[in-house]
């Protein structure tokens, strides 16, 4: 029987994907589980596996083209089967990847005024299918249509879908206000204009939304990293010889400290939600990992229950798989706080931008030698590390943030406490 | 053709005063001058649509309508300017209507083919050939229903007699004893086709009335006295017996079916047209008659003509200076209830542009 291969949902917020490249050609034999293509989602490039056996007969979406969730990508036939008379009716909704999507502005931003001002369909069918009523309700409630799975005919989002969707939920991204026109750069003849990839588009949207919609304030401390350096050296030497051999990085300890501090000061492990603050039961750490295309943030879930070893291993594993584009969709979901570490890049200090809908982000800078004043009022050579904490003032007040950083400092400067 | 009988001796004509006779000439002349002025402005591009001219047929309308009384009603087809002026409409309102102005008799909404004056018992002005013939039967029906002693003069062209509606009307008129007089203005041509090529008949067109047991007669339209005498017979039949009549009045039109008729000079020879103009023109003939009877002098006749010309010229001026209708007028006069602002007119949506 002929099988249509459709665009799978590879990320919880994905609405469309770009076919980066096919790993199989027409005529190839396909088996269940075989990787057949690479798909770029809003979060990362992932590989797509086959769910059916058959011969790959025809490809509808070419490398570089986009298709919406459920869009037809290819046709599989059984051995010796004739293709069905589908003719040219197959509309995969594929459009060239270079076409700028209007999707951002179709989102039900509270910023846009009249409901009726939504733009018309982009050719190629990449538009969100939602009934006029659903759009109206979504606009009124600030619900993001791209986050909703439609249950109407053809996947259309209808009223009940919007009503059942969480209001300003876990990953609300409101589109930039269209009221302020972008100030464009002048492009010279020798300049290059590089169209945004899906990932860069999402990064741009999310971070702009974060900066414009979350009231940031910044706390900075400078910790004594010498005890940590010593402690780490001690642990690595011991670990080498043990059964659970593992190379621990400074970042591992920082993550442990971040998590434990969040357990101690649970008010920071929270999110703002329209008219309430959600306090999370688990501490899920989003770890920023640099990859070729940009930045991804896989999540270590339930980090409060993980040992230093487990955290260390998780990080290694996630980072490696992130770079190899082998992360599963749920590995990006549900982070409650983020740690961004530029220590390896020689940064003395910085403040990061909160990753919405989280309430804070920790910015780790490099450990540097610098003169310090010791307990005896003597100037000595110290090993210092600057820590920045960017907070959402709707959730975290200055005193609470300070409390958190105080705990963090306590753990970092007395690292043995992390093992308790 | 009973040319031996001098219809001037008919009682109805004996009763006609000098003023009456002069009035008939005046109307004939006025119609002619109006039509000529209209033609001039039409060819100058001042009017849209069609223009069906009555030149040469004036004696039919004027002659018959001169008999119409308070309860007699008139309805005709699209060659209606003559009948309009004959019933007493003004040149101003008629010319303005041709120009499509708000001061036109139909507020600019009808045009050449649709002059109406209910206050003068004149019911148009109809564009569909023979479409007015059932209406004529209806006007007669209404008169009878209301117990009035009256007739409906319903005019039609010789080309209209082949339409089904005309036959249905004759049947109803005879069956229901309706006081309707169908006046076939036979100008010899149906658009571009001569009578012989379009109508099957024995001796004449009116004879078909026999089949419906309706009285009929033929009339020489050039002779106003004959027109009056024979129409009077039909009037009396209508008033006294409530029975219909078909009159076939032979006449002639100088111009084509309409001014747009490019073939008018092709299907008739110029000689033919000239013959008629000199020997059969109603103005020429009636004026000659009145001069002979001593009712009118040459000077008076000339003066009359001058006045008619001036009146027509004034009408043109009036039309040119009049405004066009306002855009909102497009939606007026569609529904009586809406125009009157009655409750019915304000309930529910009547127009659907928005």
């Amino acid at each position, binding site marked *: 029987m002929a099988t249509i291969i459709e665009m799978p949902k590879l990320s919880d917020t994905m609405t469309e994907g770009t076919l980066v490249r096919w790993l199989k050609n027409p005529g190839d034999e396909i088996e269940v589980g075989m990787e057949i293509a690479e798909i770029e989602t809003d979060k990362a490039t992932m590989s797509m596996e086959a769910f059916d056996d058959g011969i790959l007969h025809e490809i509808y979406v070419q490398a570089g083209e986009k298709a919406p969730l459920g869009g037809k990508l290819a046709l599989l036939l059984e051995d010796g089967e004739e293709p069905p008379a589908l003719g040219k009716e197959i509309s995969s909704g594929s459009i060239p990847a270079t076409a700028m999507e209007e999707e951002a502005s179709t989102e039900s931003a509270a910023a846009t005024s009249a409901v009726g001002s939504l733009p018309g369909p982009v050719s190629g069918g990449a538009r969100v299918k939602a009934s006029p009523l659903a759009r109206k309700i979504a606009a009124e409630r600030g619900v993001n249509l791209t986050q909703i799975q439609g249950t109407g005919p053809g996947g259309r989002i209808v009223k009940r879908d919007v009503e059942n969707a969480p209001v300003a939920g876990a990953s609300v991204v409101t589109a930039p206000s269209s009221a302020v026109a972008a100030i464009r750069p002048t492009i010279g003849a020798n300049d290059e204009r590089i169209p945004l990839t899906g990932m860069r588009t999402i990064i741009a949207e999310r971070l702009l939304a974060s900066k414009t919609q979350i009231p940031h304030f910044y706390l900075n401390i400078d910790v004594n990293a010498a005890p940590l350096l010593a402690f780490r050296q001690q642990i690595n030497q011991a670990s080498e010889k043990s059964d659970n051999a593992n190379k621990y990085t400074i970042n591992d300890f920082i993550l442990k400290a971040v998590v434990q501090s969040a357990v101690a000061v649970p008010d920071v492990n929270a999110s703002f939600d329209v008219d309430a603050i959600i306090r999370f039961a688990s501490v899920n750490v989003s770890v920023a990992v640099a990859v070729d295309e940009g930045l991804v943030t896989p999540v270590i879930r339930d980090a409060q229950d993980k040992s230093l070893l487990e955290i260390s291993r998780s990080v290694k594993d996630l980072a490696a798989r992130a770079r190899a584009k082998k992360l599963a969709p749920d590995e990006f979901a549900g982070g409650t706080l983020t740690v961004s570490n530029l220590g390896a890049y020689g940064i003395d200090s910085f403040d990061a931008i909160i990753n919405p809908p989280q309430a804070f982000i920790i910015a780790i800078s490099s450990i540097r030698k610098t003169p310090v004043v010791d307990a005896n009022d003597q100037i000595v050579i110290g090993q210092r590390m600057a820590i920045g904490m960017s907070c959402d003032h709707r959730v975290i007040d200055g005193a609470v943030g300070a409390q958190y950083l105080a705990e963090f400092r306590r753990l970092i400067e007395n690292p043995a406490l992390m093992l308790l | 053709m009973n040319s031996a009988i001098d219809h001037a001796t008919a009682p109805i004509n004996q009763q006609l005063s000098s003023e009456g006779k002069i009035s008939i000439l005046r109307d004939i002349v006025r119609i002619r001058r109006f039509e000529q002025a209209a033609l001039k402005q039409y060819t100058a591009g001042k009017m849209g649509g069609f223009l069906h001219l009555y030149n040469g047929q004036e004696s039919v309308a004027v002659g018959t309508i001169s008999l119409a009384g308070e309860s007699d009603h008139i309805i005709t087809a699209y060659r209606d300017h003559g009948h309009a002026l004959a019933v007493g409409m003004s040149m101003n309102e008629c010319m303005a209507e041709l120009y499509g102005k708000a001061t036109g008799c139909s507020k600019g*909404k009808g045009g050449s083919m649709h002059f*109406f004056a209910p206050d003068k018992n004149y019911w148009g002005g109809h*564009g569909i050939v023979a479409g007015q013939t059932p209406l004529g039967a209806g*006007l007669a029906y209404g008169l009878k229903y209301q117990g009035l002693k009256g007739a409906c003069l319903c005019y039609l062209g010789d080309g209209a007699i082949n339409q089904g509606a005309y036959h249905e009307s004759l049947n109803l008129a005879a069956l229901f004893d309706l006081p309707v007089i169908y006046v076939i203005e036979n100008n010899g041509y149906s658009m571009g086709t001569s009578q012989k090529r379009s109508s099957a008949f024995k001796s004449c067109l009116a004879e078909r009335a026999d089949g419906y047991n309706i009285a009929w007669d033929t009339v020489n339209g050039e002779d106003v006295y004959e027109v009056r005498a024979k129409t009077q017979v039909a009037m009396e039949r209508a008033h006294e017996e409530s029975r219909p009549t078909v009159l076939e009045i032979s006449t002639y039109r100088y111009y084509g079916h309409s001014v747009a008729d490019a073939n008018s000079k092709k299907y008739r020879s110029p000689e033919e047209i000239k013959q008629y103009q000199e020997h059969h023109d109603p103005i020429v003939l009636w004026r000659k008659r009145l001069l002979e009877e001593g009712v009118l002098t040459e000077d008076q006749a000339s003066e009359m003509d001058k006045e008619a010309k001036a009146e027509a010229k004034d009408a043109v001026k009036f039309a040119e200076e009049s405004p066009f209708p306002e855009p909102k007028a497009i939606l007026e006069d569609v529904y*009586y209830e809406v125009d009157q602002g009655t409750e019915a007119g304000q309930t*529910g949506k009547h*127009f659907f542009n928005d």
Partner: protein
Amino acid sequence: MRTITYRQALNEALAEELERDENVVVMGEEVAEYNGAYKVTEGLWKRFGDKRVVDTPISEAGFIGMGIGASMLGVRPVMELMFWSFAYVAFDQMINNAGCVRYMSGGKIKCPIVVRGPANGGTNVGATHSHTPENFIANTPGLKVICPATAYDAKGMMKSAIRDDDPVYVMENTKLYGESGEVPEEEYTVPLGVADVKREGTDLTIVAHGRAVITALKSAELLAAEHGISAEVVDLRSIRPLDEETILTSVRKTNRVLLVDENKPFCAVNTQIATMIQEKAFDYLDAPILRLNAIDAPAIYSPPMEELQLPHPEVVIEKALAVCK
């Protein structure tokens, strides 16, 4: 309240208006001595006589044109078409004269006529006897057209039609003549231009006129009992003038619309309703507006086939479920 048939309701309306206004005349083929082909005029000739109830020859263009002519003088003819399918031979009179004479005279004339008769399929009388031309009439400014579906509406609206000073064309239905309904004894009228919610509901709006209303009501019962869908049925009653507000209020409430019309699809009345709704209630629609019309061919004779051809509960329910997905 007493229950009478649709036919009796019409008969009463005609009798009451003949009584009330001496200008009213009933005219048509077989309306007098035969008591009406469908007995709508039964007893009227006996009661009112030759002058008020008039038998005409088979001559629609002739007698309808005659009626229009008489109406210009103040007579108020109520003219019967044995079938609305016979109107076409009289269309020149009905459209060009009744519909245009007022306008072309600049408002000097009015034609207070009524043309009435059954306009329906579903009786196996073949293609040329089964037309429902309310859409043609509705397209003509200057004319009015109504389609009562119940005895109550038939009587009330016929009276209003006769009293209306514009031409009103009334589409009845041979299949409704025998249907009964509650009709008050006291004098009442139903105004033109007002729709009626025949059944309240919350999940779906079904808009219909004429016999399709009865079909819609039957379908609504089944939708409730078997599918848990609460359908609201809006009876247009009056096509032109049209009550848009009642339709829109219902759409705003239910957000889903099915338009049922016994006419064939292209340019049927429900096309006008559909475009009106999407224009004026766009943001209230949770699904596209769906229409259900007769299958797009001349009316078939074969009885079971004709039943299939016209909207019937099974297909109404099918479409309703599609709208409610």
